[in-house]
């Protein structure tokens, strides 16, 4: 069974998940141990994946499961950012009392679901991964039981997500009915021209996926869930499900439906433009940083979709670069958020940032760099992310999309500037605590240095991503 070798990482994570759960159940007061074991198993998993990536591409289990450059890269960044999520939030979850054994176990199972999603080449496998991921996320969103907002956000996310999963499943059944298979490759062979049934199926599936990446008009859940969930879960929400869902969108549009690009291109362009504009405008009035970053991530997903909408290899590659830089900017942003702690209480409003540049110069310079990068100002990494996207978009001569996208960056710059104004131009308040754990400092340093100095060597990342050829 040569196939087993390829899915060794998935097998490893399943086994370690179960072992960790057993340890947690049978050993008393083991939540910290479980937490650390999870980090270790994720590190091993990362090593395994990097080790595996030179293997030739493979399509296994009757070609329902794909291991290729795209899936390898996406899995590596998923696991990598999961490690950062754990590193940054360890103190937070202790302080707000959610360090329970279920917490890391749920995150691990969600990651397993994402890995299945990323590699899926079949509608059923994809749906399985999606549900595994989502079910864990519902629980995580409401993990802070004592907090009313957290329970509300969990419930809200569950109801809306279940609805979108239903729509998605209906779309899958339509596609199966009209193409005769659930396998992407066979669907692609059977679809030569569009018919109404297929288009309906396609649209339903896209609705479900757009919900997962919170693209407008399926974004309603994002601000509430981001705000209500514990911050350690919000950072998870902001990064990991998006990587997985974006990979699925790329694979789904470019493998089975590549022949009917004229049917889906307009939909993606619409989602992209709506997300960019809405994300930019709606964030202006926000005062809660988590809510604000929810709207900002809606906007960022718009840019990632703009790359996908081009229908070219360069477009897909630019979206992957975008999501990579986006996740690093988010890690940096949330690391700063985790540092706003005074007397064991966390602060998350824009007003709480007032004048921190005087008391905390290094923290505020990191946040400054991150915010300018999110706004896409050169020479920071965020600019390059947008630059590659527009490079691909303009190559296809989609000038309207490019102009709308760039104009909405100007609008979006306003709300990032508002935060900077608070930090640098306003009067200072009380100091925040300075003793942060090593993991948090490390992740802030790494991510900020990457954002700041990416422009010195942009080559390597581009070369890695150039190996990903979807078409």
């Amino acid at each position, binding site marked *: 069974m040569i196939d087993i070798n390829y899915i060794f990482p998935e097998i490893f994570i399943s086994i370690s998940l179960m072992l960790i759960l057993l340890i947690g159940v049978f050993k008393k007061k083991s939540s910290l141990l479980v937490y650390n074991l999870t980090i270790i198993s994720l590190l091993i998993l990362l090593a395994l994946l990097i080790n595996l990536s030179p293997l030739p591409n493979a399509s296994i289990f009757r070609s329902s499961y794909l291991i290729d450059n795209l899936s390898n890269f996406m899995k590596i960044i998923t696991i990598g950012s999961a490690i950062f999520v754990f590193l940054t939030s360890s103190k937070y979850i202790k302080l707000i009392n959610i360090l329970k054994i279920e917490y890391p176990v749920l995150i691990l199972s969600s990651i397993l679901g994402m890995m299945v999603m990323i590699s899926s080449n079949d509608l059923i496998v994809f749906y399985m991964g999606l549900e595994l991921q989502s079910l864990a996320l519902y629980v995580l969103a409401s993990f802070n039981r004592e907090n009313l907002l957290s329970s509300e956000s969990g419930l809200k996310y569950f109801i809306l997500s279940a609805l979108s999963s239903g729509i998605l499943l209906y779309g899958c059944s339509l596609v199966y009915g009209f193409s005769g298979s659930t396998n992407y490759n066979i669907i692609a062979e059977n679809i030569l021209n569009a018919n109404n049934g297929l288009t309906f199926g396609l649209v339903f599936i896209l609705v479900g996926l757009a919900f997962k990446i919170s693209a407008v008009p399926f974004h309603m859940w994002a601000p509430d869930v981001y705000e209500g969930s514990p911050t350690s879960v919000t950072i998870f929400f902001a990064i990991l499900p998006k990587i997985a869902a974006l990979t699925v969108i790329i694979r789904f549009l470019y493998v089975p439906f590549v022949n009917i690009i004229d049917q889906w291109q307009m939909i993606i362009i619409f989602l992209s433009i709506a997300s960019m504009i809405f994300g930019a405008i709606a964030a202006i009035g926000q005062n809660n940083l988590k809510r604000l970053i929810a709207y900002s991530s809606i906007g960022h997903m718009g840019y990632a979709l703009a790359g996908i909408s081009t229908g070219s290899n360069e477009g897909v590659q630019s979206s992957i670069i975008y999501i990579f830089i986006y996740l690093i900017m988010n890690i940096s942003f949330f690391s700063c958020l985790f540092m706003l702690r005074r007397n064991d209480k966390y602060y998350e409003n824009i007003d709480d940032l007032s004048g921190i540049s005087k008391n905390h110069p290094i923290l505020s310079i990191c946040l400054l760099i991150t915010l300018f990068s999110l706004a896409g*100002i050169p*020479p920071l990494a965020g*600019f390059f992310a947008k630059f590659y996207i527009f490079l691909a978009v*303009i*190559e296809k001569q989609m000038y309207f999309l490019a102009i709308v996208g*760039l104009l909405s960056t*100007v609008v979006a710059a306003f709300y990032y*500037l508002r935060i900077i*104004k608070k930090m640098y131009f306003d009067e200072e308040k009380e100091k925040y605590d300075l003793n942060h754990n090593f993991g948090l400092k490390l992740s802030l340093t790494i991510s900020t240095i990457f954002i700041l100095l990416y422009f010195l060597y942009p*080559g390597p990342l581009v070369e890695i991503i150039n190996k990903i050829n979807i078409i």
Partner: protein
Amino acid sequence: MNFPILSSLIILPTIGAFFIFFVKSGNKTYQASKYLALFISSANFFISLYLWYEFDNSSSEFQFVENRIWIKDFINYKVGVDGISILFIILTTFISTICIITVNSSVSFRLKDFHIAILLMETLMIGVFCSLDLVIFYLFFEGGLIPMFLIIGIWGGKRRVYSAFKFFLYTLLGSVLMLIAIISIYWFSGTTDIEKLYLIGIEPKYQNFLWLAFFSSFAVKTPMWPVHTWLPDAHVEAPTAGSVLLAAILLKMAGYGFIRFSIGLFPIASDYFIPFIYFLSLVAIIYTSLVALMQEDMKKLIAYSSVAHMGFVTLGIFTMTQQGLEGSIFQMISHGLISAALFLSVGIVYERTNTRIINQYGGVVSIMPKYSVLLMIFTLGALGLPGTTGFIGEFLILLGVFKKNFAIAIIASLGVILGAAYMLWMYKRVIFGKIINESLNKIIDLKRTELFILSCLALPIVFFGFYPEPIINTTEISVQNLLEMYTSNIENHQTNILND
């Protein structure tokens, strides 16, 4: 000459800023930051002077070129200077040094951060003037927004937040369209290397749109009427050093951009849009001069006069004559020195009296005689008296305009008269007359550093006013070459149209 002299010019201030960031703040150690910033910026100034010394006037080629692979098969890091850009680099390093000295003697609030911001600005501004690749140019051009935003917002006046936001959003809005144009050029021509693009040329049918996209960015930055409204706000609210940087160098980026990119890359579109530019420049000259006449705030008056002076610059550039272009470059250098000096002068009295309203002054000559003499030189320079750099710039520009169109030259000359009117009127009201404001009696004349700074600026204004040769010689061949390229492009295009 294999030593990367341009790159070291670019990188040196950043290295300085990096070290200053790790200087611990506190009263004593601010000294370290002061000396370090001063040392770095003056070292950079001397390197740039050495660059001018080594520069070969007789060649129109780009010199000191460095070409390194940045993103493989895509963009190269390419820098170099020719006769047009070298003077701006010297202006930048000179003005940055002046700014550091000013800040050292007048700012006490978050001084360390101010040093960092100015040094980063210096890096980015030098980068703008020597980049020979469109993407690299864009990086430097836009990156300048970040430190300038902070300078206005942190150290500015009462309405600093509003002005900082206005400055940032206006300029960002202008330049995003330029980004689209740069990317389009890449797909049309397969390269963003300026030297190669000069050779290949860009297809005439695309030129108009690309020209407009570049124009939108440069027009905001110049600033041209009617998108100049950010400038008075930004100038008035910015701290003295910030106003100096803005007026002396940031505005010149746009004028430089017009010469290097609009004319160099899109000659046919430039030809097409000449009347449009003439119109906007004339409106800027006459209208903003009239507005300047009515100002009560000294800084605002100088800000509006900057818009008028930059109107002359754009007018001169688009005459497409040797005199007009050389005059524009000369005028930009001269305006860089004079406006810097004027803003510094206003800053000096503002520090003493906390007011910039002209009516609050009067009779300053009897209290501050040294100051009055120096301000006289700058005022006369600004209105273009023979013997100052201001005269030579405006004279050359008007000469170029007369060659092209008599009526426009007459209207532009009116602007010179208006300029004399508002500058002299301001001078009269501030310096002469009786002392109305009692609190003026307590103020003291120039301190040593202030005298030093202002003399440093007065010296080149007068020197190059009498002896413009060095500047004219440096620019001459490059301008000639640019114009030859421009005319040959236009002729080719016309024969092509005739053949069709």
